[in-house]
């Protein structure tokens, strides 16, 4: 990434996360990167120099299309992939989950919930088995009765009530929503401080999604969880998150408070994302023939092109965008965007940031 911001904005000004006001810092990703070798000497930069922080009791949403690197970022934070570069800090100390013991300790602080409750639970094991293992592994030696009591508590926390009706069931006997609740309970069994939720509701029915999100929100509050909510649905991030990070081709292109960012997106990609979301108040309008849509290029492959990764699709791209990758520059105390053309893309956001900033 190019940090050449001379003569642009005040580069040294730090952007404060909108999630920071909720609680103390729990986890920090500092300039993390992940490359995958594709063979033939090609390298895919799945995550490029990404930094953000998670705070206890706050929700940070990571929004992006498939292939943007958001799930890879989650796997890096969960310790399931090795970093190519950068550092992950847990409670202020660098985390290195490379040895087995350190990995287990790390896992009892950081838990991951997967997208698909149909494949993330083992079909040959009961709910009890799924919860018993993490309770025994992460909560030390306990008597059989204590473990059973703990399982009941966990199931009640995710509102699977009465709990004893669910302990003996197999995944196929549960609905999608119930399965995802079991996944939540399994993650909570380790008593983590950080919960990484990778598209936790996108496989569920619309009428059930909201209930699951409010359950997650409830758990966040009760256990002061630092929550990373990964989604492609920027509308749910608006309602659910404190801070939104928008990811494109492995980079964070914009970050800011959820409401501000969704209502006044600054980066051209965020603007495209917001404009593409279904808008019931716009009956038929935006889909009429001739309505402007994005140029039909595939998302920029995250290989080593020098310029801004969005430039091939960006309506505002100029020569500079194709040769220099912009760094994430502060717009205001809590917002930042990586774009050379912000003066054209979002003049009002720039003006508000200059006027209202510290």
């Amino acid at each position: 990434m190019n940090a050449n911001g001379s003569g642009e904005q005040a580069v040294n000004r730090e952007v404060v996360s909108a999630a920071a006001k909720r609680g103390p810092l729990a986890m920090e990703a500092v300039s993390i990167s992940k490359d995958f070798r594709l063979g033939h000497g090609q390298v895919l930069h799945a995550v490029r120099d990404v930094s953000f922080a998670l705070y206890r009791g706050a929700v940070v949403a990571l929004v992006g299309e498939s292939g943007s690197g958001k799930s890879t970022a989650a796997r890096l934070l969960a310790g399931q992939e090795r970093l190519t570069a950068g550092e992950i800090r847990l409670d202020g100390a660098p985390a290195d989950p490379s040895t087995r013991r350190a990995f287990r300790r790390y896992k009892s602080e950081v838990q991951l919930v997967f997208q698909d409750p149909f494949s993330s639970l083992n079909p040959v094991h009961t709910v009890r088995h799924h919860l018993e293992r993490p309770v025994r592994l992460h909560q030390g030696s306990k008597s059989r009765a204590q473990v059973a009591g703990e399982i009941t508590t966990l199931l009640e926390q995710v509102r699977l009530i009465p709990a004893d009706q669910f302990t003996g069931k197999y995944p196929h006997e549960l609905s999608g929503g119930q399965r995802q609740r079991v996944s939540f309970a399994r993650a909570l069994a380790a008593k983590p401080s950080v919960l990484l939720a990778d598209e936790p509701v996108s496989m569920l029915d619309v009428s059930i999604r909201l209930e699951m999100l409010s359950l997650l929100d409830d758990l966040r509050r009760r256990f002061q969880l630092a929550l990373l909510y990964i989604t492609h649905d920027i509308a749910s991030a608006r309602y659910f998150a404190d801070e939104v990070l928008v990811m494109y081709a492995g980079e964070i292109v914009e970050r800011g408070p959820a409401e501000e960012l969704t209502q006044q997106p600054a980066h051209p990609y965020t603007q495209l994302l917001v404009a593409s979301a279904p808008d019931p108040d716009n009956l038929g309008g935006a889909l009429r023939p001739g309505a402007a849509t994005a140029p039909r290029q595939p998302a920029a492959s995250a290989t080593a092109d020098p310029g801004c990764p969005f430039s091939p699709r960006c309506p505002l791209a100029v020569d500079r965008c194709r040769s220099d990758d912009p760094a994430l520059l502060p717009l205001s105390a809590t917002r930042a965007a990586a774009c050379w053309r912000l003066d054209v893309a979002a003049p009002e956001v720039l003006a508000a940031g200059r006027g209202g900033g510290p």
Partner: protein
Amino acid sequence: MTAGARVLDITDFSVNYRTPHGDVHAVSQVNLGLHTGEVVGLAGESGSGKSTLAFAVCRLLRAPALITSGSVTYSGRRVALPTDVLQLGPHELQHLRWREIAIVFQSAMNALNPVLNVRDQITDAIHAHLRMPRRAALDKAASLLDLVGIPRSRLRSYPHELSGGMRQRVMIAMALAADPEIIIMDEPTTALDVVVQRDILAQIVELKESLGFAILFITHDLSLLLELADRIAVMYAGQLMEVGTAAELHHEPAHPYSRGLLNSFPSLHGPRRELAGIPGTPPDLRHPSEGCPFVPRCGYSTDACRTVDMHLERVASSADPEHVTACPFVLPETPDPDRPSPQAEQEFQA
């Protein structure tokens, strides 16, 4: 949007799945019409019977699915008399499918043959349904790709070499091969990103405007339908709950389930609304209860709901005689009852 003549008329249509534990009433007594040049959206949760309905209309279901009642009348430009699809023999069905009614399936990943390239898949479909020399079929395949905005250089690509959006476009190109009157789209954009989704939907609308086919668009995403469809049918537990224009459903939804769905998705534009969701889970269709199937999850329900005779009736207060609802008690102007889960709401606002 002006609606043309009726091309498809589904009346009193029921489909059961036979299982050892009793019949599953997947679709019960559905009445729905489709006009030329119209987009009708069929919205419902998984298991509501929306895909079963669409497949059964084309006679694409096999045992243990059984059509137990009703008729499906097709009257296109190219058929002299309205025909009942349910009475057709195998040869006539072959003629009807693809040429008159085409389907775009949900997952293009699985619907395309992984060992055939795009050109061969499209010409295969053309040869199966139209009499056409090889050369002409190749030209047709190329021009179909033009229609959906895929460069001709992709003709020799295999499905795995295409992005998800391109695969879905190939599916749409194939559906257009025989210039059908009706295209049934079963969640065609669900697996795609919002940006690609919007792009493809805009293209579908554009093609529809220029070619004049009708679309039955099946999805669980009501917010999408509000923007795309002319009319929307809301399905729950195998039955239609409400049918009306997109504007009517958006601004004056009558049925409590439609209202629940509308309150279930967060909106990106406009002021923050209160979100409520729908508590509970859909019913077991093996044991249909008396009266309205939505009663256990309904905030308005009374004892009368358990005995009500379920059929669609005109919404009295609506100016449009085609705005119909299955709930005789709740009207668009009925105020919301105490929300089932006010606590969840507060959490969301916090």
